[in-house]
């Protein structure tokens, strides 16, 4: 049989389709992101409550990036990291420092100097990009790289540690990052004063008195109060560009020989190593790639409208939020993580008090989506096959109950005995309950390890092919005595004096 090396030399894929497969998705992502920013956003501004929906959309983009990047560590290689928000914080603060102080030095103030693709404001005229966008773009990449370096440092202990122990290391890393950021100095708003600030080393920073103003620029990250005064560059364009690229990278990795190496580590580390996978190096790579995208997401988060970047915001609560998305979507499933990230971002928002929103009833929509998810879990629900009609019935009855409840409230209000049920107050309870229900019905998450585009996902209940059944057992040949189903195969050349032993050593 031809060895792989020679065979790959012989394999000549056609150039045009390969290039198309390589580049078209990238072009598609860019077009999609531009359309969101240039077409959807102006339309949303004309709708009542549109700003709110645009913000939710922005959050979806960032959360998809986070969930998919965490999938690379937790889902692919099976290393349990619970410090993902720390990588976000590292990337976010790095980017914030670059953009804020970079803008101060370049433009004299930290105003947004962005084109129409990079703001959530309503300037749709003007150039697509301006000089501020360049700084922002650089900050995204540098933020990612600094986070990736931290990912490398955290990945190192994962060589020796597994499961809970590794989780504690990542938790510790998260706390270190949080505390360090909280120890940083106030943000400087004065350009002249900033220009005089010396660029001192790390040691000098810690030996100086805390109220000393003469701290280096890079140590002025706002401390416990948070980094205020940041320009809001993050737009639907940037958020979905990054989310799209993260998805693309994760999908291409998973489908490649490297993705199989990652997954094999999760499945069985000993066998993986024995098959020639350098498990050490792949585990560190997983951390590095994952941390890079978390850092970029953090940079987007830092420059998002309505966000005050602070270490508190990026504590382990945030890490757990991301883990919930990954677990709910299915450990190892990219599409699952993305869907779960979107759902988890939308649902708590929609369950909020509707009086703050104008127009339609978002809570009803939210409950309908929840019902659909629960029904979907029934349908997919692993061990016992649930027929389609039962799934549909379960889903429809949940929707019906929701609408009946809604109707009851309406009727009660109309008859002059208003029922004072504020669904918004119970939103986290409803949300948590549906998560519990989900875990009971489908502990492996929505999609398990598979992807929504996998063939096996859609026809998993097909009958096993005939070849899957074991070959019929042939009766023991003449003259062979079989006791206790312990077969003596007829290749036995005769009595050897050595009894067969079936146990292991």
């Amino acid at each position, binding site marked *: *049989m*031809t*060895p*792989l*090396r020679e*065979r*790959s*030399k012989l*394999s*000549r*894929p056609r*150039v045009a389709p*390969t290039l198309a*497969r390589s580049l078209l998705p990238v072009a598609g992502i860019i077009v999609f992101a531009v359309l969101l920013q240039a077409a959807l956003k102006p339309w949303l501004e004309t709708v009542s409550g549109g700003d709110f929906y645009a913000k939710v959309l922005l959050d979806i983009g960032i959360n998809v990036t986070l969930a998919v990047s965490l999938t690379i560590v937790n889902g692919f290689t099976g290393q349990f990291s619970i410090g993902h928000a720390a990588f976000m914080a590292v990337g976010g603060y790095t980017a914030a420092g670059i953009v804020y102080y970079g803008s101060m030095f370049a433009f004299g103030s930290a105003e947004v100097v962005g084109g129409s693709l990079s703001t959530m404001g309503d300037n749709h005229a003007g150039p697509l990009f301006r000089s501020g966008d360049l700084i922002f773009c650089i900050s995204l990449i540098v933020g990612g790289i600094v986070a990736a370096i931290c990912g490398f440092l955290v990945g190192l202990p994962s060589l020796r540690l597994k499961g809970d122990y590794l989780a504690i290391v990542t938790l510790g890393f998260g706390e270190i990052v949080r505390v360090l950021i909280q120890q940083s100095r106030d943000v400087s708003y004065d350009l002249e004063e900033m220009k005089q600030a010396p660029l001192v080393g790390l040691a000098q920073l810690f030996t100086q008195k805390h109220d000393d103003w003469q701290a280096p620029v890079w140590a002025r990250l706002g401390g416990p109060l948070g980094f205020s005064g940041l320009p809001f560059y993050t737009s639907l364009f940037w958020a979905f560009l990054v989310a799209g690229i993260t998805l693309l*990278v994760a999908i*291409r*990795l998973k489908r*490649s*020989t*490297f993705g*199989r*190496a990652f997954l*094999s580590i999760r*499945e*069985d580390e000993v*066998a*993986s*190593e*024995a*098959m*020639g*996978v*350098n498990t*050490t190096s792949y585990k560190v790579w997983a951390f590095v790639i994952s941390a890079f995208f978390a850092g970029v997401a953090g940079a987007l988060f830092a420059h998002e409208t309505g966000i005050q970047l602070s270490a508190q915001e990026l504590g382990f609560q945030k890490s757990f939020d991301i883990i919930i998305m990954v677990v709910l979507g299915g450990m*190892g499933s990219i599409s699952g993580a993305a869907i779960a990230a979107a759902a988890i971002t939308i649902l708590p928002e929609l369950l909020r008090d509707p009086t703050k929103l104008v127009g339609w009833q978002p809570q009803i929509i939210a409950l309908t989506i929840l019902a659909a998810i629960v029904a979907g879990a029934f349908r997919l629900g692993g061990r016992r096959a649930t027929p389609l009609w039962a799934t549909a019935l379960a889903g429809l009855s949940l929707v019906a109950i929701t609408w009946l409840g809604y109707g009851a409230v309406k009727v009660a209000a109309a008859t002059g005995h208003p029922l004072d049920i504020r669904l918004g107050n119970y939103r986290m309870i409803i949300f948590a309950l549906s998560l519990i229900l989900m875990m009971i019905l489908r502990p492996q998450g929505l999609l398990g390890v598979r992807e929504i585009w996998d063939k*096996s996902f859609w026809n998993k209940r097909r009958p*096993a092919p*005939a*070849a*899957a059944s*074991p*070959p019929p*057992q042939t009766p023991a*040949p003449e003259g*062979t005595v079989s006791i206790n189903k312990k*077969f*003596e*195969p*007829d*290749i*036995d*050349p005769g009595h*050897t004096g*050595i*009894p*067969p*032993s*079936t146990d*292991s*050593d």
Partner: protein
Amino acid sequence: MPSILRVQSLSKSFGGLKAVQDFSLDLAEKDLQGLIGPNGAGKTTVFNLLTGVYKPDTGTITLDKQNITGLRPSKIAAAGLSRTFQNIRLFGELSVLDNVRLGCHVRSGGTMAGAIAHSMFNRAEEQAILARARELLGVFNLNPLEDDQARNLCYGDQRRLEIVRALATEPKVLLLDEPAAGMNPQEKKELAAAIRGLRDRFNLTILLIEHDMGLVMEICEKITVLDYGETIAVGTPKEIQTNPKVIEAYLGEAEPPEGSKAA
């Protein structure tokens, strides 16, 4: 015949337990040898030492003139030594095809950046991996099952898949740890023929651990017998069958004749 795997006075202790003592082995190209012994004799420990799961206390292992003693398992696999596991260790959630494709990983030469960019080379290699994996699955006619999750396969097929996955690493020497365990007589017969066939088709050198004496005696040219970590006999199947030490190791010492106790 030139020697391809040479093991010289290999020893390993776990605390006070001498799991393997002074184990030596010489496999010539295209040899098919057996390693037998009662439970707890240290057969699997020998495999774990050869494949780098454990580091030997003393001794050297030479694979095709390359010293592989103390290397990490992935390096040893890359050098051309592959194995199957006694307690099946497939990647259960992955498909049958992906299990085999993972075996090809060690021979692939692409970079992660190439995979992310979908480069021409990456595409060519993925096509080659797919073709090769399908061809290898054909060895045991597992192709109809290629989309199934490995854990859903029946026991015999899981054992066969383990062999296919090991073959995908393009080994020079293949170590089989109880390949026939849990198979019925018909399957064992087919397996015996298949192991011989594999050796000829892939130019393999095979060392197998097996408790099924029929299988071992039938296909092995030379057998090494271990007991309590020590090599008690080496020889052809005929010699082993009549070796008193081997019989003693398996059946215990002959009862002293009646009355000898009283005397």
